C-alpha cells in the first residue's frame, strides 16, 4: 500500500512541478560531480599526457652509469614499457666542417610518448633511423652545409631525415649543441664511449597510473645519488607549475561547487518536508502508523532521489560529450573509464539527498496529528546541531570521495562552516541595525525595512544562502581570472619563440645590426660566462654527494653556472630584498637559489672562472619567473666584475610571418632565421615556437575546464537563490494579504517587496565581497602563490548585482501574489 501511495504521490507531484526544485538540486549535484569528475579526469589525463610528451614518457630515470638491472626487472614485473637511450656530446665531421652535437642514441620503442616530427613534408615518424643512418636537427644541417653523411668516431652515418621537433626536446637554451638522433645499437661501433666518458643513460617508462605508482615506490629506493627520477610534476618542464595549479584549482572549484549544490539540496529538502507537514498530520489523523508514514516518505524520497540521480548522470554524460566537441581531437581521444564518475555521481546523490534530508524528514515524521486542528503546530524541535553535523558530515564525505584528500576536504568543510557562522552573525547584526527605523506603512522603503526586520531570523538564513553562493562565485571568478592572467603574463602573445646562443663577442654588433635591419625586436643580448661557485663567506663548499657521504660543510652547487653581467636590472626580475648592484664587487642572486644556499645579504661568494677566483658581495635578491621563456640567470654581476673573462652571448625574440609582413618584409620568419644562420654560422638558433604552441594549447584546455566549472557554480548559485525565495513564500503571502486588506496599494506593495529583495541582495553582496576578499587572501597566499590585491570594483558591483538579481528573482517569484486580489490572498493563506 505504502509503495502504491508513494508512487502515486511521486507521479502526481512530479506532474504538477512540485518536485522540480529538489529533483533539480539533486540533478545538479550529481551532474557536477559526475560531469566534472569525467571532464577533469579527461583533462588531467590530457594535461599529463601532453606534458608527458615533454619527457616522451611517464617516468624517466637519468643515470650516469648503467642502471641496476633490478630496477628494470621491477618495471617488467609491473608490465611497464621501457626503452633505454644514451645521451652524450661529441664532435661530428662533414668534409672540412665540424660541429659539437648532442648525440641521442635511442633504443627500439623510442619515443614511448609523443612523436618525432620530421621537417620534410610535415611528416611524423613512428619509426627510427635504420642502422647506419641518423636524423639531424635543422640547425646542424645549416651549420654543416647540409651534407649527405657525417663522420662520428669510427663510423659514417647517412643523414636521412631532418627533425623539426623531438618529443623530449626539453627546454634548455644553454644546451646549445644541436641534436643528432641515431640508433643505440650503432654507438658501440663509434668507439667514442670509453670508460670515464661523460654520458647519460636515459631510461624512459610508460604504463598504467597504478603500476607507475608501485614502480616509484619500489624502484626509487634502489637509485643512488647520481641517478635522477623525473616525472611530469617534478620535471623541469616549464608547464609543471601551471599543471599543478590548474589541478588544484579544478579540485577546489569542484569541491566548492559540490558544497553549493549540497546547500541547494538542503534548502530544497527542507521546503519539500515543509510542504508535506499537513499531509503527514492528515494521514496520522486518519490513523496511519509511524511505520506507514516512514515507509511512505522514505519511498517517496527514494523515488525523487533516483530521478535526480538518473537525470544528473545523463546530464553528466551529455556535458562530457559536449565538452569533447570543443577539445582538440587528440585530447578528446583520451577516454577515461565511466565507472568512477558514475559511482561518484550515484553516491553523491544518495549521500546528499539522505543526509541533507534526514533532519527535515525527522521533523516531518514528528509532526503531531493535532496540527489538523492547530495549524501552527510543528514537530519536535530537534537540535540544530544534528542538522549541522549531518550536513557537514555529508559534505566531508562527498569532498573526500571526490578529492581523496583529507586536507583539502577539511579545508573546504571548515571554510564552509566558518563562512556560515560569519555570515549568520554579520547578517543578523546588519538587519538588526535597522531596528530603529519606524514601522510606517506609507513609504515603500520603510515598509521594506520593516519587512526585513520582521523576518530577521529567516533573512539571516537566506543571507547565508545568497552570500555563500556569491562568495563562491566571486572566489572562483577571481581565481580563474588571476590564474589566466598569470599564465598570460608568463606566456604573453609575443613570448620569444627563438633563442640565439653561442653568440661570439665579435658577432654581437653585426647581429644587432641584422636584427635591426629585419626589424626583429630581440631581448637584450646577455653575455654568458660559465663559472663555478666555490666559497660562501670564505667557507669552501662541498657537493650534496659529499654531504651525504658524511663530509661536514656547507653545500653548494656542484655544476657550472651560467653567469651574466649588465648595468641595469633586467625586466621581469623584481628585487625582493636589497638593492641592485651598485659597485663592481656586488652580485644579485635569484631568490630561489639564495634560499637553497641559505644566503643572506652582504654574504660573500667566491667564483672560479677559467681557474681564476674572484669574490663578490651579495647585495640583492631577485625573483625570476622561469616560465617566461626569457633569458634568465641565477647570478647577475656588474660588467667590470666579469670583464676579464671570455664569453659568448645569448638573446631571444618573437618572430612569425605576420610580424615580418607587418614590418614590411618580404621574407617569411623561417627565411629570416635561415638568413641569420647563414650569416652567423656559429650562432645556434633554438626554435621554441613549437613548445610555445604546446604550452598555449594546455593553457587553453585549462581555461576551458575553468569556464565549465564556473558555469556549474553559477547554476548551483541560481538554484540556491530560487530555493531560498521559495522557502519564504508562505509567510510573505500572509503578510501581503494583511497589508492588502488594510488598504495598501498595489504599487506600494510591489515597491516594498522589490525594495526588500533588493536590500537583501545588496547586503548579501556586500557580505559576500568581504568574505570573498578574505577567502581569496587565504587561497592566494596558502595554496596558489598568487599576488594578493583588493578587487575594488567588486565592492560596488557585488552589492549592486546582488540587489538586481535578488529583486528580479524575488519579484518574479512573487508576481502571482502581488497580482492577486485581497480575497484570493486571504483564501490561499
Amino acid at each position, binding site marked *: *500500500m505504502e509503495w*502504491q*501511495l508513494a508512487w*502515486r*504521490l511521486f507521479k*502526481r*507531484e512530479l506532474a*504538477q512541478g*512540485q518536485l522540480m526544485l529538489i529533483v533539480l538540486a539533486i540533478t545538479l549535484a550529481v551532474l557536477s560531480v559526475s560531469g566534472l569528475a569525467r571532464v577533469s579526469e579527461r583533462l588531467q589525463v590530457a594535461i599529463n599526457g601532453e606534458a608527458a610528451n615533454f619527457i616522451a614518457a611517464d617516468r624517466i630515470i637519468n643515470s650516469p652509469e648503467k642502471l641496476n638491472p633490478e630496477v628494470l626487472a621491477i618495471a617488467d614485473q609491473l608490465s611497464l614499457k621501457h626503452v633505454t637511450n644514451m645521451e652524450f656530446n661529441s664532435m661530428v665531421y662533414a668534409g672540412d666542417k665540424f660541429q659539437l652535437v648532442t648525440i641521442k642514441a635511442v633504443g627500439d620503442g623510442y619515443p614511448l610518448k609523443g612523436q618525432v616530427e620530421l621537417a620534410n613534408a610535415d611528416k611524423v615518424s613512428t619509426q627510427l633511423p635504420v642502422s647506419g643512418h641518423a636524423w639531424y636537427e635543422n640547425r646542424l644541417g645549416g651549420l654543416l652545409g647540409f651534407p649527405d653523411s657525417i663522420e662520428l668516431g669510427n663510423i659514417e652515418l647517412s643523414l636521412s631525415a631532418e627533425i623539426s621537433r623531438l618529443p623530449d626536446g626539453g627546454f634548455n637554451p644553454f644546451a646549445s649543441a644541436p641534436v643528432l638522433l641515431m640508433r643505440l645499437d650503432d654507438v658501440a661501433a663509434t668507439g667514442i664511449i670509453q670508460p670515464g666518458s661523460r654520458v647519460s643513460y636515459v631510461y624512459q617508462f610508460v604504463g598504467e597510473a597504478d603500476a607507475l605508482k608501485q614502480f616509484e615506490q619500489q624502484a626509487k629506493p634502489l637509485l643512488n645519488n647520481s641517478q635522477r627520477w623525473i616525472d611530469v610534476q617534478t620535471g623541469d618542464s616549464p608547464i609543471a607549475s601551471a599543471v599543478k595549479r590548474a589541478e588544484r584549482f579544478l579540485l577546489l572549484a569542484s569541491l566548492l561547487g559540490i558544497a553549493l549544490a549540497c546547500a541547494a539540496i538542503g534548502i530544497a529538502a527542507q521546503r519539500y518536508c515543509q510542504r508535506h507537514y*499537513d*499531509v503527514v*498530520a*492528515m*494521514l*496520522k*489523523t*486518519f*490513523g*496511519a*502508523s*509511524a511505520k*506507514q508514514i516512514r515507509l511512505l516518505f522514505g519511498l517517496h524520497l527514494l523515488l525523487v532521489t533516483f530521478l535526480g540521480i538518473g537525470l544528473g548522470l545523463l546530464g553528466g554524460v551529455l556535458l562530457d560529450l559536449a565538452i569533447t566537441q570543443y577539445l582538440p581531437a587528440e585530447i578528446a581521444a583520451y577516454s577515461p573509464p565511466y565507472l568512477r564518475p558514475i559511482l561518484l555521481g550515484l553516491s553523491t546523490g544518495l549521500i546528499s539527498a539522505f543526509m541533507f534530508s534526514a533532519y527535515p524528514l525527522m521533523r516531518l515524521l514528528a509532526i*503531531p*496529528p*493535532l496540527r*489538523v*486542528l*492547530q495549524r501552527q503546530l510543528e514537530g519536535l524541535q530537534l537540535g540544530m546541531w544534528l542538522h549541522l553535523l549531518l550536513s557537514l558530515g555529508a559534505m566531508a564525505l562527498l569532498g573526500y570521495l571526490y578529492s581523496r584528500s583529507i586536507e583539502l576536504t577539511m579545508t573546504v568543510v571548515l571554510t564552509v562552516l566558518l563562512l556560515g557562522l560569519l555570515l549568520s552573525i554579520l547578517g543578523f547584526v546588519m538587519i538588526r541595525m535597522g531596528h530603529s527605523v519606524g514601522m510606517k506603512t506609507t513609504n515603500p522603503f520603510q515598509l521594506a525595512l520593516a519587512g526585513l526586520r520582521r523576518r530577521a531570523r529567516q533573512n539571516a538564513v537566506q543571507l547565508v544562502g545568497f552570500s555563500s553562493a556569491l562568495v563562491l562565485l566571486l572566489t572562483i571568478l577571481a581565481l580563474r581570472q588571476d590564474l589566466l592572467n598569470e599564465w598570460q603574463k608568463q606566456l604573453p602573445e609575443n613570448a620569444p619563440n627563438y633563442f640565439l646562443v653561442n653568440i661570439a663577442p665579435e658577432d654581437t654588433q653585426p647581429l644587432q645590426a641584422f636584427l635591426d635591419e629585419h626589424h626583429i625586436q630581440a631581448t637584450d643580448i646577455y653575455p654568458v660566462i660559465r663559472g663555478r661557485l666555490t666559497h660562501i663567506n670564505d667557507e669552501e663548499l662541498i657537493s650534496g654527494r659529499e654531504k651525504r657521504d658524511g663530509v661536514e660543510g656547507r653545500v653548494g652547487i656542484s655544476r657550472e653556472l651560467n653567469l651574466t653581467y649588465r648595468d641595469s636590472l633586467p625586466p621581469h626580475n623584481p628585487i625582493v630584498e636589497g638593492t641592485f648592484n651598485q659597485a663592481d664587487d656586488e652580485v644579485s642572486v635569484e631568490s630561489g637559489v639564495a634560499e637553497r644556499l641559505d644566503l643572506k645579504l652582504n654574504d660573500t661568494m667566491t667564483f672560479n672562472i677559467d681557474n681564476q677566483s674572484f669574490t663578490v658581495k651579495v647585495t640583492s635578491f631577485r625573483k625570476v619567473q622561469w616560465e617566461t621563456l626569457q633569458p634568465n640567470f641565477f647570478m647577475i654581476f656588474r660588467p667590470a666584475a666579469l670583464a676579464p673573462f671570455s664569453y659568448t652571448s645569448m638573446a631571444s625574440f618573437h618572430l612569425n610571418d605576420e610580424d615580418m609582413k607587418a614590418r614590411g618584409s618580404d621574407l617569411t620568419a623561417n627565411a629570416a632565421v635561415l638568413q641569420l644562420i647563414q650569416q652567423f654560422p656559429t650562432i645556434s638558433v633554438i626554435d621554441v615556437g613549437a613548445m610555445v604552441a604546446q604550452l598555449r594549447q594546455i593553457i587553453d584546455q585549462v581555461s576551458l575546464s575553468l569556464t565549465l566549472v564556473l558555469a556549474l557554480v553559477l547554476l548551483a548559485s541560481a538554484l540556491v537563490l530560487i530555493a531560498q525565495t521559495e522557502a519564504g513564500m508562505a509567510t510573505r503571502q500572509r503578510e501581503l494579504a494583511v497589508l492588502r486588506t488594510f488598504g495598501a496599494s498595489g504599487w506600494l506593495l510591489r515597491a516594498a517587496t522589490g525594495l526588500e529583495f533588493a536590500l537583501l541582495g545588496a547586503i548579501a553582496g556586500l557580505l559576500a565581497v568581504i568574505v570573498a576578499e578574505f577567502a581569496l587572501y587565504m587561497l592566494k597566499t596558502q595554496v596558489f602563490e598568487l599576488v594578493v590585491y583588493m578587487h575594488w570594483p567588486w565592492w560596488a558591483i557585488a552589492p549592486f548585482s546582488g540587489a538586481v538579481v535578488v529583486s528580479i528573482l524575488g519579484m518574479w517569484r512573487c508576481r502571482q501574489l502581488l497580482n492577486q486580489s485581497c480575497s484570493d490572498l486571504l483564501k490561499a493563506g
Partner: protein
Amino acid sequence: MSNNFAQESSAIKVTNLIKKVVTQEGELTILKGINMDVKQGDSVAILGPSGSGKSTLLGLLAALDTPTSGEILLDGASLSGLNEEQKAALRKQKVSFIFQSFMLVDTLTALENVMLPAELAGVNGAKEKAESMLKRVGLGHRLTHLPKQLSGGEQQRVAIARAFICEPKVLFADEPTGNLDSVNGDKIADMLFELNQESDTTLVLVTHDLQLAKRCKRQFIMDSGVLTEANKANTETEANAENSDNTAATVEVC
C-alpha cells in the same frame, strides 16, 4: 447495572476532563473538568466563542491530544495510557474527520483523496468504494479532478466522502461549513446528516453556526473551558442525579 449499560451504549464518555498548557504567562487551564456522555448514533454540536476550548476538546475526544487528567472512553475503549501508535490504530478503526479547511492532499485527485483512509486501513477494493462514495456525494463526474479544480463546496463533499469511506463509529467535524457560503453550507450539512443517519455514525460537530447546531440532536455550549448542555440540560441533570454525581451532569462547573 444502569451505569454499565450506559457505558456499553456510549460512543463517547468523558469524565472530569482537564487540559492545562504552559504558556509564557504561566499555566493556563483550557478545559476545566469536562463531563460528557454521547450515545451511539447521536449527533452533538459544540458551540462557543473562539478560544473557549472547543477545538481542544475535539482534539482530545478524537485521540489526537492527551489530557492533563480525566478519562475518555471512545466506543468503550479507554484512551488513558495509550501511546501514539495505539491511538493511531484506534483512530483508524473507529473515527473519522471533516475539517474547515478540507485538508485534502492537493496533489492527489478527488478519487485518490477519498481512497486514502481505506488504503491506510488496508481495506480491499478501496478504489471501488471511493468511487461509489464520490457518486453518493454527487461527484461521480469529478473523480480525476484535483482539489484546486474543484469549488469549496465540492472539496468539502470530497472530504465527506473520505470521512465515510471507512464507516467510522464516530465522525468529528470541525466547522465543516465554516469556509462555505450559506447555500453550499446547507447542502453540505444536508449531506452530512443524511449520511450520518444512514450509517448510524455518531457525529460530534464543532461550529459557530447556530442553524447547523440546531440540526443536531444535542447542543453543548463551551465557555471559558466549561461545557454546558443547552435546552435539555436541566432535565437530564435531574434524571441522572440518582445514579451518580459524576456521570449525571453533562454540565459541571468547576
